[in-house]
């Protein structure tokens, strides 16, 4: 795809021809894009704690049983 084509596709998904959306609450004033990134960081943090790590249970069981850990 040409550069112009790529630009057209991205432009179709994200309309950037307007001033940035801003979240304004009391003294807090943040661009919407930054708010989305902060929300994604909070989600990543929660998922990293909640999601089991592959093989973690097996390792813990092996350690409790004294099996070659």
């Amino acid at each position, binding site marked *: 795809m040409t*550069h112009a084509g790529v630009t057209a596709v991205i432009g179709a998904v994200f309309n950037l021809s307007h001033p940035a959306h801003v979240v304004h609450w009391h003294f807090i004033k943040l661009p919407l894009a930054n708010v989305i*990134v902060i929300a*994604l*960081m909070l989600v*990543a*943090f929660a*998922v*990293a*704690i909640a*999601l089991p*790590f592959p*093989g*973690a249970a097996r*390792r*813990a069981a*092996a*350690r409790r049983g004294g099996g*070659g*850990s």
Partner: protein
Amino acid sequence: MSGAPESSWTVKVREKAVEALPPEKLLPDGQPTYVASWIYMFGVASIASLVVIITSGSILALKGPAWWHYTGVGHFFNSIHMWSVELFFFVMVVHLWGKYWMSAWRGGRTRVWITGAITFLVAVPTALTGYVSQQNFDAQWISTQAKDGLNAVGVGAFFNVTNFGQMYSYHVLLLPIAVVVLVSAHVLLVRRHGVVPPIELNARLATAPAGEAPAPPATSMGAGS
């Protein structure tokens, strides 16, 4: 040649270095089992992002502004550099939150925490000088906005964000060296003190009766996992 005298500074430095960080600590066989958690992965994810940043940044520095503005490959590497910075800050902030909530300065790890915190603070002007070095309207907008704030705190005279040459020097030499040195010190300190254990494990070790303390965590994870 005969052996160096014991008073030699090289011998003293070597002995101090090996004492502080013996090879088995510097490059261990494995990590404690409690490291098998996604929250422990954000530190190494920060380092991985930093490697991509430095690699793509080196290519941009070699090719120059005309290349990154006017060629397809240049746009690609410009984007790789910018998005790896975004990813670096993203994973570094999650790493910081994780370590804050597990009080990662416990067990004599104060310097580990401090080097990490200073790395974050130094990374901010490293990114800012990058944004104002782009040589486009975005850079012009950011630099004219930032100069008011910097002038207001009195540093504008020697840190002039509208001076491309000065900002570019900060961005490609001084600040990246500072970040790499700080990250290296941070990683070496982690190797020296070990990855901080969960608070729960520390509490169990502290409250267990003498002679019945649970065994210290085994090192069953591969070093790279």
